[in-house]
């Protein structure tokens, strides 16, 4: 697999939360968000933005948003996901929330989702993007230069 350096990637909510919690089972979440953010272009769909907003206080959210503006690039997508695509992915076996994420990424032509949520891989066999763990993402970034 090629390096994801310079690619536009979506970071799932769990990556942000595990990074900020400094979750010992997923240390690469912290590495990716704290040390590698400036090597990637981030796509932030409405669904993930709302999930973060629910988890973080306003002052915490403001600073996370500011950190994201320091990525190589960030795209804020506040448009709701397309209903017909959500239904299509639900018919393929995705839970509604995962269908929403998949619909967002498909329309924006995002090739990578970094997530520790393995449901995507269990539910769907023909995803329009590759799901990477934070560990895989960090490794791919390292292969593309420090």
């Amino acid at each position, binding site marked *: 697999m090629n390096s994801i350096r310079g690619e536009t990637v979506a970071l799932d*909510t*769990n990556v942000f939360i595990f990074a*900020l*919690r400094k979750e010992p089972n997923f240390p690469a979440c912290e590495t990716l968000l704290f040390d590698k953010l400036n090597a990637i272009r981030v796509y932030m769909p409405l669904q993930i933005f709302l999930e973060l907003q629910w988890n973080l206080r306003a*002052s*915490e959210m403001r600073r996370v948003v500011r950190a994201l503006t*320091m990525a190589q690039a960030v795209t804020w997508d506040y448009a709701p*996901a397309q209903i017909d695509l959500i239904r299509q992915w639900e018919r393929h076996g995705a839970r509604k929330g995962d269908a*929403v994420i998949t619909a967002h990424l498909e329309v924006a032509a995002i090739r990578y989702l970094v997530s520790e949520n393995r449901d995507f891989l269990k539910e769907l066999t023909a995803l329009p993007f590759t799901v990477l763990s934070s560990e895989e993402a960090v490794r791919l970034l390292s292969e593309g230069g420090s």
Partner: protein
Amino acid sequence: MSSIGQTVHVTLQLPKDMYERITQAALMEQRQVEDLLRTLIAEGLEAHTTIRELLEHVSEDYRARLAREGKLHQSSDDVLQELRDLREQIARELYPR
């Protein structure tokens, strides 16, 4: 000797309209004005920091809050499950059939 953790008292004058904006924001965030002022000053200082420095401070605040709420030592599986449930809840609210 490290000065980390020590505090000092500061008295400052603010324009009235700025103070009113701060009290309004504190009310909306259900926080003490003094607490919000500390955050705003810290955010101003962070304008010149690196991503890691910035997120370390967010993490410190977030972890302290989780500790106060008794949620800091939740297992990663529990956190993932909560996030899954939240995703479903938001999706159902945003895209009702």
